[in-house]
């Protein structure tokens, strides 16, 4: 056909060869397309048809990921677009799990179920967001990075504004969309600078060398802009401003999902981005990743935890606390070669579980007792003993007290940072350790508010208690058991972690 492309069949088989490694993603797309059709034609007769379809798609994707097992490609797929590895598979399983929990939350959320326009589109959007997240954990090309980040972002704006049942939800969505749009434009500009400096979009050796060739100031500018874009997904300081407002305004199931799924996808992306430079071991010459991330981690922990102390609204408090957790997980990134890799994975998984459980219970209480503030929780412990018992355990885990998974996670992160400190005797790891320890104590102040109010204060007599949705609590209960089991037998997770 053309002398430039002599072997068109060869190039094409290179593409088709990669398809078998994308079975989970294909399952998601298939479920998405099927869901669109079902929503159009059958949703009137079977209200939950799309939900079942989405759950089936996610289940199939999870199963395919597990079934693939060790069948991993040796080389990047699709001309260096993505790379499927053990680590991306772990992330993908977390995403699918979080999305399934989100579906459970949606199923029991009265506001969503009574939404006049139906919930079918939400599940379809969710599938695409999950698709984007799983590509975020695999992309090794800046085009794929941008595309998958945009998929997740735009999908998230839609999810936040999905109901728009009141002014606050609409406000949250516009804030999210404008902030996110600006951040992704900043990231795009950073990518364009990297392309201008290096001439390649592949995250790899050539790019690192190209960035080395330009003055360190230039490459630092480009990398800073890209990090700001990734930071938007992670909501670390100073790119965190949006998250408290959006988390408070969004419907609770969406908040639960956003503070878990896309955030973890952001960690996956950050990991890929950093590994590019760490593998080449030359990253420090033009950009001091470790110190930058250390400072960001410290600031993020301080801002998140200290601001949370003042919150009364539970969702807002959890939003700030999730900022604090972001800072904590970032500590693991600084000490990747001292066990931080494992620690980060472990913490991310445990964080996903406990965060989802916390929001589930917040949603449960919100729906049954109409309480959204800590002071509004007064005396509710006696009314919902099971829910609040679980809540206490989940909060204990979030604080990082044994015998819960949160404790093991914190222990692993702390010891990896300690290892980093031992290796370098630098000031910043020590500062991180101290900040981490202090903010852990601080976090006790606001986490304690919930049991304090629920159990130890007597509340108003007339609290309207509406319909039962026990399964939500039982799901949270199951998560609590997992957290405890993981706290006592960390082997349950560590045995399957890469790194």
């Amino acid at each position, binding site marked *: 056909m053309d002398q430039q492309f002599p072997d068109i069949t060869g190039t094409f088989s290179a593409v088709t060869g990669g398809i078998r490694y994308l079975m989970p993603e294909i399952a998601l797309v298939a479920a998405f397309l099927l869901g669109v059709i079902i929503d159009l034609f059958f949703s009137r007769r079977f209200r939950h048809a799309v939900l079942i379809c989405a759950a089936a798609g996610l289940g199939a994707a999870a199963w395919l990921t597990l079934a693939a097992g060790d069948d991993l490609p040796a080389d990047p797929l699709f001309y260096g677009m993505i790379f499927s590895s053990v680590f991306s598979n772990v992330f993908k399983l977390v995403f699918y799990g979080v999305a399934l929990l989100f579906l459970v939350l949606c199923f029991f959320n009265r506001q969503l179920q009574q939404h006049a326009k139906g919930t079918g589109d939400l599940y379809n959007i969710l599938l695409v967001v999950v698709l984007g997240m799983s590509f975020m954990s695999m992309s090794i090309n*800046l*085009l794929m990075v*941008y*595309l998958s980040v*945009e998929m997740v972002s*735009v999908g998230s*704006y*839609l999810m936040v*504004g999905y109901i*728009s049942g*009141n*002014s*606050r939800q*609409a*406000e*949250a*969505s*516009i*804030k999210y*969309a*404008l902030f996110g*749009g*600006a951040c*992704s*434009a*900043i990231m*795009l*500009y950073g*990518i*364009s*600078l990297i*392309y*201008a400096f290096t*001439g*390649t*979009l592949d995250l790899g050796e050539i790019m690192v060398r190209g960035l080395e060739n330009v003055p360190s100031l230039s490459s630092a500018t480009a990398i800073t802009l890209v990090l700001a874009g990734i930071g938007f997904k992670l909501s670390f300081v100073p790119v965190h401003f949006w998250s*408290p*407002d*959006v988390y*408070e*305004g969004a419907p609770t199931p969406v908040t639960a999902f956003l503070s878990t799924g896309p955030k973890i996808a952001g960690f996956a992306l950050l990991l890929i981005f950093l590994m590019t430079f760490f593998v080449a071991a030359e990253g420090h010459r033009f950009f001091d990743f470790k110190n930058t991330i250390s400072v960001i981690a410290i600031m993020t922990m301080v801002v998140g935890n200290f*601001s949370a102390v*003042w*919150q009364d609204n539970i969702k*807002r408090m959890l939003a700030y606390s999730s900022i604090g957790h972001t800072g904590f997980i970032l500590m693991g990134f600084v000490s990747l070669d001292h066990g931080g890799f494992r620690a980060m994975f472990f913490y991310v998984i445990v964080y996903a579980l406990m965060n989802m459980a916390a929001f589930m219970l917040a949603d449960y209480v919100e729906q049954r007792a109409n309480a959204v503030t800590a002071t509004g929780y007064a005396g509710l412990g006696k009314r919902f003993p099971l829910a609040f018992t679980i809540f206490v355990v989940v909060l204990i885990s979030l604080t990082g007290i044994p015998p819960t998974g949160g404790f093991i996670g914190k222990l692993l992160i702390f010891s990896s940072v300690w290892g980093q400190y031992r290796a370098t005797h630098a000031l910043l790891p020590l500062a991180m350790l101290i900040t981490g320890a202090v903010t852990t104590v601080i976090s006790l102040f606001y986490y304690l508010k919930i049991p304090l109010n629920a159990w130890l204060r007597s509340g108003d007599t007339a609290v309207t208690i509406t319909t039962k949705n026990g399964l939500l609590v039982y799901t949270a209960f199951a998560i609590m058991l997992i957290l405890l089991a993981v706290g006592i037998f960390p082997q349950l997770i560590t045995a399957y972690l890469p790194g």
Partner: protein
Amino acid sequence: MIPLEHYLLISAALFCIGLYAVFTRRNAIQVLIGIEFMINAAVINFVAFSKYDKAKLGGQVFALFAIVLAAAGVAVALAIILNVYKYYKTIDPGKIDELRD
């Protein structure tokens, strides 16, 4: 052919103009226009440097994707803006501040 660093300068100027619009405009649609400026600034870079990348044409392809994704983003953002207008009767981002500490 103008030198590549002039392209970089033009794009930097456009980027910062967009940034300024995002910070200051009192109308959400104009804020969106600012974001579009920032995206177009990146597109200038991609296109200008793509000249040297004949083998993969990464810059031009990226530019195409950026334009298409931006359009989709704008469509979603406008739908959201109209929803906001329903409740606030304004689309001044500065006046939409019910959610705060």
